[in-house]
Structure formats: C-alpha cells, structure tokens
C-alpha cells in the first residue's frame, strides 16, 4: 500500500472504526467492564525499548500517544570517567534516535498486516500457481484457516519429502525481544522445527561482519565476538591515553544505533572535548566526519588495504613501530615485513605505490603514518565499512596489523567499535541479563538439536533452489564463527536429503538487505517452492513473495524481558548503553487488528500439531519472563513484582570499580589469544596450511588484493563509478521505510510526485553527465537498474556514488526480475559473488555502476 499524505489520519480513524480505539479484533467479541474501560482511559507511562533505543511510551485510551527518552532516576549512581582534568558522565536519560522517536508512527502505519492472508493462486498440496508470486493479491482468511494451512503443509511436506524439505529463513533483524522478535527468531522457531524433525538450515553466516570474522579472527581470535576484540573500558582508555583517534571506513554516528539509539554519541563528543585529534578515512564526509573529525582523507572504497600497507611501510622503514612488542607478542613479523618492503614480490608498498591504487596522496599517507606513530592512537574501525567489500578480510587483517605494530593493548593503543557489539563505557561485568539472540535458551530444560545436517547458503539461495546441486566451502552455521568452519565443504542437496519445498520466515527485510535482489527474487518464482509462510508486521517485498501471511505484533504490543541494547549471547557480556537497564517491556497496547506475538503464532502451530507441551514446556509468556528474571542478575536487586510493576530497573554503577581495559592483559602477558600460538599471528600458519603461500585471493600475511571487477579493471570501462552501499540512516535495514516522518527527511520528490531514494554523486561526476541536483537518474549495471534522485554533493569522492540499501523495491513487474526499480533499492545492483575464495560471504558494499540522467526511456 502506498502512503499518501493523509493516510495516517485516515489509518488512525480506520483502526479506531474497525477495531475500536483500544482493543484488538479478537477482543471485539469480548465485553469490557466499566472498570476496565476506566483503566484503559487513564494515562499510563510504560518503560520499554525500541530498536532505536530506550523510551517511555505514554498510553492513553489504549493508544500510544508519544514516546520520550527513558529517564534514569536521580538517585541511581552513574559512571564517571576522569580524563585530562575533565570529568565525563552520561546524561540522565536514554538517547533514542529517530527510529525510536518514530516508533509510534511505524506501528500505526496503514501498511500493517492486520489479519491472516492467503495469496490468490496458492493451493495447499503444491497445486497452486507460482509464477505470479509477488504480484498476486491476498485474501483475508481466519486464524483457524491459517493455522490449518501452515500445519497441514508442514505435515504434508515432511511426510512427502522428509524434514529437509522445510527451511527457515531468519530475517535481517527484527523487533527487539528475548521471547518475541529476535528471541523467537533465534530460539522458538528452530526449537519448534527441531521438535517436528528438523529442517534445512539457511546459513547466513554474517552480512555485517564479513571481513572481520573471515580475516581479523585468524590474526587475534575473538571468534565468539565476530572478531571484535574486547571493548570494555576502551572509552576511558582512549580519553585518558590516546593522542589521536583514527576513524577508518566507519560512520558510527549514522550506523551504530541499532537496539540502543545514540547512547555513544556523547562519547565521540568527549573525545573532542578531551583535546584528542581525530581523522576520518572514508569515501564520503559522513555524519561522523561532519561533527567529529578534524580532517577528512577521501579514499576509494575497497582499496583501503593499500593505504594501510603504505602506513606500515613508513613505520618499518623509519623504525617507528614497537619493535619490542612485535618480538614478544606476535608471530610472523618477518613475513609481513617482506611483503611490505617488497622483498617478497619486488614491490615496496610505498606511499607512492598506494597513492596510485587508493588515490590518497602519498604525502598524506606519510604524514598520517608519522602522526600515528607519534603517540597512542585509537583505531575506530571495527565491524563496519570496508569489511563488506572486495577481499574485506584483507582490510580487517591490515587494521589488526597496524595496531599490532604500535603495541595493541598498551595504554591508549586500542581498536574499537563503541557500540552495540562491544560496549566501551565502564560496565559492571557481574551483571548478566538476556539480550540480542539470547531467547529462551538459558531457561529451556530440554534441548532439541537439529537432526538434519543439510544447509542452504543465503549467498547461493536462488542457485540452490533453481539449479542444484550447489557446492561451497565455509559460510558457518549461524551468527558466530569458528576458524575451522571456513574449511568445511557443503553441498546442496546432500545425498539422501530432499531439496527444500517449504519456507518459513519471520519478519521482512532479507530480500532487500542482501545482495542481488533480482537474482534473489527469481528463486521464489518457481513451483519447486510449494509454500512460503511469513510472520510479518508489514506488507513489503518478503511479504509479497509469501503464500500465507500471518500478522505479527510489534514490541509495544506484547510483554518481554531484556537489558537495553545488550549483545546477549551473540556478543557475550557486552553492554552498549550508558546505563545497564533491565526492562520488563510491559506491553503498551493490545495487538493491532488480529495480530499476535511471534511466540503465540508458533504456539498455535504447536497446539495444532500436538507438540505444544514440548515446545512450551508448559510456559506462557509470563512464565518465560519470570524464569528469565530468576536466571538473570536482576533477581538479586528487586523482587519480580516490583520489577513488573515499575517496568524497569537501572543497575547502580558499582561504588568501587576496577577498569580492565581491553587487551591490557595481553599487553602484559604476551600470550593467551585464541590463536594457535596464543599471540597475534601476522603470518597465519592455519591459512598457509590450507591455501598455501600463493593463493591470489588470500595469503598467510595480509595483502592488498586488486579487486577483480573494481575501478581499475576492464569492467570499469563500461561501468566507471563505484557504488558505495552503506547501512541506511533513515530506516533500520528495511524497517521504517514506510514511516512518513522519516521519508520526509530524505526522499526526493520527482516531477511525477514519486518519492525517489536519494543517491549521492559528486559535483564533478554530475557535471560530466549533465546531472543537476534533484534530477531523476538511472543507476545501472549488469545486475540491475534503478531510479534515484540525484543529490549532487562535494561530500563524496569523485568516482563514487553513495546509496543506502533497504529502500522499498518497486520494479515495473515483480515477476520479471531485472525490471526497472523505481524504489531505489541499491541491492538490485550488488553481486552475490562471495567476498573471496576464502570467505563465502556477502560482498554488499561496492560494485561498479554507471549513472545517467533519466528522461523516461528504459
């Protein structure tokens, strides 16, 4: 449904007409007592969290009327950092971002799925019509019918083809929750399918940490944390000891917001207030650069490893690296040195050599290298950016190598991401609370492993479906990697196992957040996939391609328990907020329409299939919350009743706090990393043993590797511009793309009234193509073509075009992959080729394109 200017007020009145202003469709049938009505009419404050940070929602007449930052009570002790004569303390409130402030608009959006739906043309038993997936209408069905269809199909598919014929595709990220949302996705759904007999696992590996897990981990371990080294107490370490902060290929002000909002924004301000110099290396003057960087060093995206090599060249030739540390803390320095100085391949990696590759002036590289070596430097680079591009593992290994040469772990010499993943602020490590992906795991009594060994990889999904068999190596089983998983071989289908016939999914977002949308969609236009079921909040691309759509409710419409922004099991013991806040997540309102919580939906399937007792172990939502409460630290601080009544609890910061800055122990002990040698492996024997010394895509020491289809390849003759596809600012992947308040902030209205997704193009490239600010442009390559609004700016390096992925995909014909996309979904242009022979992972961030002014011709 498209959203026009008055849709919101209409939607509000439609919702209140149809469902009454305060109860769900199901509840319409129930009578409400005058006492209950009085209760509903009262204004209430609910302390909760959104994927954009902690908020207090104001509820009146059964409706959320607004959200404000979650307050921190005056009497709660906060952390304090003393540095350079200043004292830094966080504000006494959470700092939700535009997503958090826009949550109300999102949950009341007219595009909400309000009843169970069935696709016209779909028939149970694989007898329907499939080539019109994506295009056909949906009809409303009852919950009973929906449950019959889903459970009937699960049963039939399992009996006909075996359990391997069922797969479950998790989303990119969904709403916050331990029991619902991410919790259901990571625990309840797999548990449900495993009880049924298992399923073919849909492997994503990772899509945001690509180069880190496949690169940096081989150097310094931290497998369990996706190669983000420990983050604790790095904030104080930087503020007290660093002379400079280098931001490299990262825009944390814009991108590091998920599940906590702007909690870290003050930290970056403190860096400046402490008088620490800063520099940004990036293809664009991103938001972080605007407010936090003294200087911008523009670079071609994907060529950063060359610059890093040249920095090391300066240090090695001038003797300004930490020779003692390198001797005691690392293995393989000589091999790395041979590569850097050119002994290995005859090419010294000089700043002049790098300039030709990455287009940063040699003088700038030399100057930066000397600044870096002049005192302790914080390298702010983890997670984001260049790790998702060509040979992203080389860039991450280079980053570790840089800090290693300066004595990683020494006061002020650290690597950070300061965010959701690794924290950074002073943090009471004795506190254990559920968070991201923890789900019900800590309190399940019986575990159900998946008996089906077969996997399907997200990178090859459409090939697996349409053109099996498919073989690949690496790619992991889930969110977290272990080194040896890179060397496992997989094939689909596995001998003795069926191909996938039925797909279960929770939440949207995947089709547009992953590479090569057109190819990805082609996999759904086939009778080979007989049934697709989705549990969704909105009508969006993943929903269009489903057969049965089940209405899910949002975080505001169900109860849950968690710690704000906590990394949960994904990143153990991380706290990414300024305060450690346990949240009861009391529901603010009743589920919209006939929507249900994620857990409820799976409970209803289980009931029908006779496995409810096994799935639930007799637990209701409230029982799980209670059990998780007693399994967490919070139970030592307040009673369950108090916690539930108040809705949240802010753990006081300990009176006595001993900071343990990340990796200081390694600096002191020179041993104990999770690598074969326990040291930093500048040369990786593991990689050497598997790939040998001469593999062109991965070597035992980090190298700059020329992108095959990059700006210096023949490919660039046809498509001369590099598109730089980054995490979106105005939506969370695809979520909130429909929020009018946020669309207004960035979409560009064309002469036809259509709201185009903006694309940044440099003044120089625009002039060369006759493009002016606000023009509609076509961006294209061999993968696809889209329309965007040109934002002509000096903030981007000439030769580079920038877009955020995740904009709504509006192709001329949803059943004809490759047709022109008017929504501006940047992933119609990206390639599903893997990062390298070593990393069978998404290479989402860059690809070559051409841009031309759009005058209506195809």
């Amino acid at each position, binding site marked *: 449904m498209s959203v026009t*200017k*008055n849709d*919101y*007020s209409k939607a*509000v009145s439609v919702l209140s007409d149809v469902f009454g202003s305060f109860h769900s469709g199901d509840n319409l049938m129930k009578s409400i007592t005058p006492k209950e009505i009085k209760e509903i009419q009262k204004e209430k404050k609910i302390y909760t969290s959104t994927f954009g940070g902690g908020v207090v929602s104001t509820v009146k007449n059964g409706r959320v*009327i*607004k*959200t*404000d*930052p979650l307050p921190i009570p005056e009497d709660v002790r906060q952390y304090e950092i003393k540095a350079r004569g200043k004292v830094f303390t966080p504000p006494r*409130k959470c*700092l*939700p*971002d*535009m997503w958090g*402030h*826009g949550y*109300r*608009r999102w949950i009341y959006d007219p595009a909400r799925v309000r009843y169970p739906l069935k696709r016209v043309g779909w028939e149970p038993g694989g007898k329907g019509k499939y080539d019109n997936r994506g295009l056909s209408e949906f009809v409303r069905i009852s919950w009973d019918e929906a449950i019959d269809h889903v459970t009937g199909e699960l049963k039939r598919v399992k009996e006909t083809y075996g359990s391997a014929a069922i797969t479950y595709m998790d989303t990119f990220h969904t709403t916050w929750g331990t029991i619902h949302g991410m919790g259901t996705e990571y625990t309840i759904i797999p548990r449900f399918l495993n009880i049924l007999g298992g399923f073919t696992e849909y492997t994503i590996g990772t899509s945001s940490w690509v180069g880190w897990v496949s690169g940096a981990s081989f150097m310094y371990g931290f497998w369990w944390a996706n190669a983000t080294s420990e983050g604790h107490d790095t904030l104080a370490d930087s503020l007290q000891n660093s002379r400079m902060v280098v931001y490299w290929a990262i825009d944390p*002000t814009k991108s590091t917001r998920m599940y906590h909002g*702007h909690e870290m*924004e*003050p930290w970056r*301000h403190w860096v400046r207030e402490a*008088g*620490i*110099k*800063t*520099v940004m290396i990036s293809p664009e*003057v991103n*938001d*972080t650069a*605007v*407010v936090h960087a*003294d*200087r*911008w060093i*523009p670079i071609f995206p994907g060529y950063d490893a060359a610059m890093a090599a040249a920095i090391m060249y300066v240090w090695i030739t001038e003797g300004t690296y930490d020779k003692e540390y390198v001797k005691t803390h690392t293995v393989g320095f000589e091999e790395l040195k041979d590569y850097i100085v050119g002994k290995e391949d005859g090419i010294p990696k000089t700043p002049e050599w790098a300039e030709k590759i990455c287009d940063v002036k040699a*003088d*700038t590289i*030399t*100057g930066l290298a*000397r*600044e870096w070596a*002049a005192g302790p430097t914080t390298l702010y680079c983890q997670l984001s950016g260049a790790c998702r591009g060509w040979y992203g593992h080389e860039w991450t290994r280079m980053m570790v190598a840089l800090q290693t040469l300066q004595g990683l772990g020494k006061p002020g010499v650290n690597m950070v991401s300061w965010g959701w993943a690794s924290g950074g602020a002073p943090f009471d490590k004795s506190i254990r609370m559920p968070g991201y992906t923890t789900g019900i795991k800590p309190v399940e009594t019986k575990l159900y492993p998946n008996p089906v060994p077969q996997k399907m990889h997200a990178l090859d999904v459409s090939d697996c479906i349409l053109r099996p068999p498919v073989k690949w190596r690496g790619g992991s089983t889930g969110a977290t990697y272990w080194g040896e998983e890179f060397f496992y071989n997989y094939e689909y289908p596995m001998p003795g196992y069926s191909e996938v016939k039925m797909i279960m999914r929770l939440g949207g977002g995947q089709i547009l957040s992953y590479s090569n949308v057109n190819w990805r969609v082609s996999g759904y236009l086939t009778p080979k996939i007989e049934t697709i079921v989705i549990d969704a909040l909105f009508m969006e691309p993943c929903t269009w391609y489903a057969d049965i759509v089940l209405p899910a409710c949002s975080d505001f419409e169900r109860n849950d328990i968690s710690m704000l922004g906590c990394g949960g099991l994904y990143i153990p013991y991380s706290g990414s907020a300024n305060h450690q806040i346990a949240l009861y997540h009391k529901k603010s309102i009743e589920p919209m329409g006939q929507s249900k919580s994620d857990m409820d939906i799976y409970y209803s399937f289980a009931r029908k299939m006779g496995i409810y007792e096994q799935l639930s172990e007799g637990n209701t939502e409230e029982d799980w919350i209670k059990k998780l409460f007693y399994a967490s630290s919070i139970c030592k601080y307040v009673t369950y009743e108090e916690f539930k009544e108040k809705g949240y609890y802010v753990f006081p910061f300990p009176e006595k706090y001993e900071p343990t800055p990340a990796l200081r122990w390694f600096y002191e002990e020179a041993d104990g990393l999770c690598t074969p040698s326990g040291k930093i492996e500048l040369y990786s024997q593991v990689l050497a043993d598997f790939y040998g010394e001469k593999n062109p895509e991965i070597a035992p020491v980090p190298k700059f590797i020329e992108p095959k289809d990059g700006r210096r390849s023949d490919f660039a003759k046809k498509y001369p511009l590099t598109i730089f596809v980054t995490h979106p600012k*105005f939506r969370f992947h695809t979520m909130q793309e429909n929020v*009018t*308040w*946020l*669309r*207004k*902030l960035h979409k560009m209205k064309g002469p036809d009234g259509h709201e185009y997704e903006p694309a940044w193009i*440099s*003044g*120089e490239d625009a002039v060369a193509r006759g493009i002016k600010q606000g023009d509609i442009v076509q961006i294209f390559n061999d993968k696809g073509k889209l329309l965007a609004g040109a934002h002509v*700016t*000096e*903030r*981007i*390096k000439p030769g580079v075009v920038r877009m955020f992925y995740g904009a709504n995909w509006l192709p001329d014909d949803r059943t004809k992959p490759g047709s022109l996309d008017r929504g501006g979904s940047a992933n119609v242009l990206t390639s599903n080729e893997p990062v390298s022979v070593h990393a069978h992972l998404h290479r989402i961030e860059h690809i070559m394109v051409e841009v031309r002014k759009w005058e209506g011709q195809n």
Partner: protein
Amino acid sequence: MKYALLIDVNRCSICFACEVACKDEFVGNAYPPYSATQPDVEQEWIKLQEFEKGKYPYVKVYPIPLLCMHCENPPCIKACPVPGAIYKTEDSVVIIDPKKCDTGECSTKPCVKGCPWGVIFFNEESNISQKCTLCIHRLKEGQEPACFDACPSGVFLFGEESEILKEVKKRGARPMNPEYEAGPRVYYIGLPSVTLAGHIIGEQSLMDIPDAKVAITEKKSGSAVSCKSDISGNFVFENLKAGATYSVDVQCRGYKPKTIGNVKLDIEYKHLGDLKLAKATKK
C-alpha cells in the same frame, strides 16, 4: 521568566532526532489552548537544514536546526489581522491561538508571509496557521521541549534569558538575521559565514603543526586578524568579507615563516589545503 535558546551548530550530528521528536509530540496530539494537532508530514516546526560549503576535498557542512525564534518584536504578530490570534505569553513564548486563528479570514496567509524565517505553516485542512510552541505545555510541567530533550549531542542550551545571554556573550553566539530587527530569542554558534581555512604541516615531516600563528590581512583596508592552528594543524577564520583579497602569514618557532599573497575569497568556504612550512636553518 523569559526563555532564550542557544544552538551550537558545531555539535549537531545531523541525526534528526529533534525533528522526529517534535512530530511524535504533536502529530495526533493537541495541547489546548496552545496548539492543535500537527499534520502528519507537511509541517516541520523544527527543521534541520544541511548547508554544504566548499569544494572537494575541503567541505564544510553546517547542520542548522531552525525553529520559531519566539521574537521579542514578532513580525508575525504585526502581520496578523486578527487581534490576539498570535500573542506573546508572559514567558515570552509566541503562540498562535488555534481557536482565534480559525476565522477563515486569512486566505492570503499573512502571518506565513510575515515571518521572515518561514517557520509558520498553514494547515489547509483545518484552516489555521501552526508553528513551534516551544513546547509550552511541557514547560508548564517542568519538562524540556521535546526536541531539545531528544538531542544526543548537546546542541541546545535552553533556559532563563539572562543565564543564556551570559553564555551567548561568552561563546560569541549571534542571532540569525539581526537585520530583521525582530529580536529573536534563539542564538546560534557556528552559522555559515565567509571562511578561510587551511592545514599547516611540516615540509619534511608532513606532520600537523599545532600552535602556528596565522595572521591574515585584507589587502584593501589593511585590517588584520590572527589565530593559532589547532592540535591538527588546522586554522579557521570566519566572518570575512566575500570577494575580498587577503594575504596570509604563517609563523611558527623552528620553521621558516611563510606568506601567501593574494588569496581571493571567491567561494564562501575557502580552504588553502596543506600549507607546508620548511624547517628554519640553524643559526
């Protein structure tokens, strides 16, 4: 009590939390007698505008939150034909009374045109003009305005006028467009102005040179100003004359002085790039 507001543009991280928080406070929510509900998308009572100056690779971005200035002598009141429809409260907050404004007399939208900053919006559906109320309904409850409360970057300093004016003086803030003589209560730090900047490095070391003394002299008038380069070797002169020609002198102990004559300010944000200082020869 009179309020005033100081906005530090240099701290703004372009996050739009302020804009969206204002939406969330007012869309669908009326706060009589001060405000009717804000429509879903058309109006932006606070609007963050990003101004970009300079040429690649030396770019300066000014993110400027613009909201009603709650003027001392509001031109909007003068423009409004309906007595009392726009008024100043005793706290000097300028309010458009949603009841009194709803007369149907203002098809020409005189107040919208009357406000020189364009922060009044006409609601075509309900026939009233609307704008920022400084969240007076929140002030009465002892809360901060919603947009200030949402800001993660400490851009807004809000409070009693005399207190704010002290800061204004201390930090050299200034109102936007003083020439309108409207007496705006909002003061800004870091508004765009004609600027000359540069980056000083050592010719041999290629490293940043902090604390260098940079003096610029306007050729015509001979008027001179000076400053010191910062920790990253950057220097900035703001509020210069557009089109004027300056000579730039750089001095630093241990280095030979450097002069660049005839720097013409042909663009608003002029950056001289890397200025390399040669080491002084030892005597």
